[in-house]
Structures are given as C-alpha cells and as structure tokens.
C-alpha cells in the first residue's frame, strides 16, 4: 500500500513536470519533424521509423536520467526524506517509486512517438505486418535501454552530492554507458537482439537498482 501510494505520488509529480510535457508532446513532434526532414532530403532508409525511434528514445532517456538524478540530489540536500522516514516507509520504496514512475512516463512518450510515426507511415506508404513487428521489436529493445538509463540516473542521484555534477554525469556518462548495453548485440553474436538486449538490459537495470538501494540505505538523513 505504502509503495503504491509513493508510486502514484511520484507519477503525479512527474506527469505535471515540464520535462514530461516536453517528452509527451515534444518527442512525437520531434519524431514527425525528423521524418519530414528525411523525406525532404530524399533519404532512402527502410528502417526510418526505427532510426527515428532510436534518436528520440536516446533524447528521452537522457532527459529522464537527468531529471531523476537531479531530483534525488535536490531532495537529499533539502532533507525531504526525513518526513517520510519517520513514518513506516522503507528507503527502497522511494527509489523504486521514482524509477517506475519515470520509466512509465518515458515508455508512454516513446509509444506515442512511434504511434505518430506509424500513422504517418501508414498514410504515406502503408504499413505491413512485418513492418509493425519490426517496430515492436525495436521498441522492446529501446525499453531495455531506457530502463538502464533511468537506473543510471538514480545511481548518480544517490551517489553525488551536487545537482550540477549529477546532471553532467547523467548526460555524459549515464547515456553512454546505457548505449553500450544497447549496442552490445550488434558486436557480439549472442542470439536475436530482440531477446538478448532486453535480457541484458533488465539484468543490468536490476543490478544497478540493487546497488542504488544498498548505497541509499547507508545514507544518514
């Protein structure tokens, strides 16, 4: 009950935040814009929807990661957690509530962007079942990438004492490290990327989140 209360609280907070408005409206708009520019430049790319999806999910992940890390640092510095911890709230509830709230918002944003592009594609050249499956697979891979990125944001938030440092680390380090997970199956033949990447991604996310909880539990508030 307590966890759900915190989760819906965080979700409500993030939904109303400016970053989420950018993600939910800005990302689909950006996707449509990039698609329009591709067409204007007459670029032949059979995976145009997937390529654009990759670009926007990368931007979205970076924004979400920065938002997570900076909000945690700010809340730590303002002793926000004290008022919760004198009540029956476990420390890891905060981290998981934040993670799932932001991750859900991000997944919805990417879904809206993909949907917008698919609709345009359908009107433009038509969408086959194979195209649809391909897009779905790429979304599954990107979701794993976004999960790693969000957990990295929490990692920097928990670890770093300064908001600026947390933001910089999330942008430059978090996003790059998350990309390694995403790109790994391209270099090493583990099997089908749609299966392997999510397995690796969610495993890494779980490990990072456990590490985050361990560090957070040792903090003195």
């Amino acid at each position, binding site marked *: 009950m*307590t966890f759900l*209360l915190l989760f819906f*609280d965080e979700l*409500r*907070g993030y939904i*109303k*935040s400016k970053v989420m408005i950018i993600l939910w409206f800005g990302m689909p708009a950006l996707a449509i814009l990039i698609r329009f520019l591709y067409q204007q430049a007459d670029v032949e790319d059979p995976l145009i929807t997937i390529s654009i999806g990759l670009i926007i999910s990368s931007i979205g992940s970076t924004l979400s990661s920065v938002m997570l890390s900076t909000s945690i640092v700010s*809340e730590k510095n*303002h*002793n*926000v957690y*004290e*008022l*919760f*911890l*004198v*009540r*029956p*709230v476990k420390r890891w509830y905060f981290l998981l509530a934040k993670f799932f709230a932001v991750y859900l918002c991000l997944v919805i944003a990417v879904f809206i962007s993909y949907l917008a592009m698919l609709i345009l594609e359908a009107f433009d050249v038509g969408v086959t079942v194979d195209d649809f499956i391909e897009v779905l697979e790429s979304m599954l891979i990107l979701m794993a990438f976004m999960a790693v990125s969000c957990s990295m944001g929490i990692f920097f938030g928990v670890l770093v004492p300064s908001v600026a440092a947390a933001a910089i680390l999330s942008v430059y380090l978090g996003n790059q490290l998350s990309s390694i997970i995403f790109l790994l199956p391209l270099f090493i033949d583990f099997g089908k990327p749609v299966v392997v990447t999510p397995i690796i991604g969610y495993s890494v996310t779980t490990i990072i989140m456990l590490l985050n909880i361990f560090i957070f539990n040792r903090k*003195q*508030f």
Partner: protein
Amino acid sequence: MSQNSCIELHNVSKSYKDLLALNNISFIIEKGDIFGYIGPNGAGKTTTIKILVGLIPNYKGEVYVNGISVSNFKDLHKIVGYHPQEVGFQEWRTVNQALTTFGRLSGVSKGNLENRIYDVLKFTELEDVRYKKIKHLSGGMIQKLRLCQALLHEPEILVLDEPLSGLDPSIRYQIKGLIKSLAKSGKTILFSSHILSDVQDIANVIGILHKGKILKIGSPDELQSDFRIGNMIRIEVAKNTLLYQDLENIAEVEKVENLASNIQLVHLSSDINLNSTVNQILKLLLENDCKIRNFSIVKPSLEEVYLSYVGGELK
C-alpha cells in the same frame, strides 16, 4: 521505569566517526511536560531528537517512549509527531497533496483525512493556502506546515526541532501560542530552541545540553534559584529622596550600581546567607530613614544561567 514517564533516555551515546555527538546522556520527560531542550549549535540536540523519533538507529544506550524501546517500537510513528529542523517538502506538491500523503502514511483513514487536514490547517491558520503549491509559501507558512504534518494523526507526543528558529517575531509569537495550546490539550512536548526567552515562556522543564552532555535539568525556577552567583537586590526609593550610599560597607555586598537617581542595584557575593544579608540591608535602610518604594531580589535571567553553564558560548 517511572509510572508517569513518557520519554526516557538512559546513558545514550552517539558518535559520528571521530566526533562524540552525545556522551552518555540520560533524562526523563513526564507525561504532559513541555521539555525545552537548549544548547549551542552542535551540542547534540538534533542527534538526540533523531534518535528519539527513530531516524538514527545506531546508538548506545536505551531510549523508551511510553515504556517501549524505540528500536523495537513499530508503531512509534502513530504516537509521535515530529517537526524537523530545516526540512524541505517536494515543492511540486500543493499543501493539500503533501498533507494527504503524510496523513495516509501516518495511518489516518481515508474517510477522516479530509477533516483532519481541515482541522490542522485551521489550527495553524493556513486554510487559505490549502491548494497552493508549497514553493509559493513563505518561510513562516512552511514552518507552520511542518507543524501541521506532525499533528495530522493526533499524536500524544510532539517532538519539535527548532520550531521557532528563523521566524519573524509575529510568526514566532503565533507558533509559541500554538505550542502552548497543544500543551494545554495534554500533549507531551519536547522542543529544542536557541531562543532562551521562548524556552522560558513555554517550557516547564529545561534541559541544558553542551558538547554532548546534559549539564542541568530542572524547571526554569529551579535553574534560576540554583544559580547563586548573580544574586542581586533592586532598591527603589521615593523620588526626590536620597539613596543610601554606604551599602558597600556590608561585607556580603560586592558592589552597588546606581541605575537611576532613585534606583540602585546591589550585587551580592556568592555563598552568602541571603536571609541575613537581606535583613541587614533592610535594617540599614530603615535606620537611615530611606523611603523605600520597592525592594526585590533580582533573579538571574535564564540567559545568564545558560551562559554560566555553557561557558559563554551562546549558539
């Protein structure tokens, strides 16, 4: 364990790496007491409070609330309301959202929560900002909001860490009034403060903490009467009459200060028999036909008592 005790600390110590924040402190707060906890910055007040509310689990010694050790007290949050020092709220929340969350986490039922929020906001005169975002509130309003969240679940014990610091005089006066009315309703209150006059106004028991050690515990009167060094007598005579100038000839009198043409302050030596000295002074004044209008023993202020204990380190 005392029958009427509400909070008990026995030989509590806490270290942060090399720093000994609390050094074997013990005290008991009885039910219905208003315990004013004073000491300079870094004395260990907040550490004591955080141990008491369960925020610091690793310490030496025993801490009991209503006879139950806080380390094993699962429902501690239900009977204790905690007002932290300098704690922020998530600023995207409105006052109502923050209180709803804290109320639910404190175990207030959904059906009762609306009324409780209304009651605490009315009590602190914050009804008008119920649906305002916290980031738009003033410092005084946020301090009141801290008090609101501590009161939501109607706890029997209130632990207030510096509830009056950083406030302008009118808000301080208002919050002092709120604390007094809470005490009248039977709540046991522990509050820390730097502002000695506020402690003197509100508390019926005062604990002085310095460098992690309890130096003195007692009522304001006890603290002042124990403090002999500053005993003074204020003598006022009728206007246009002469003050008696030879009081310094009395052995127990250290010095005489003329505060006005008809008022003098007689400083007495320490370790004297106050009764016989007073009699001696009065006799001398009457023999010399002084027209006495006021003769009173001036007790040292709490500030002087405090400074004498902590060696002049105010704050």
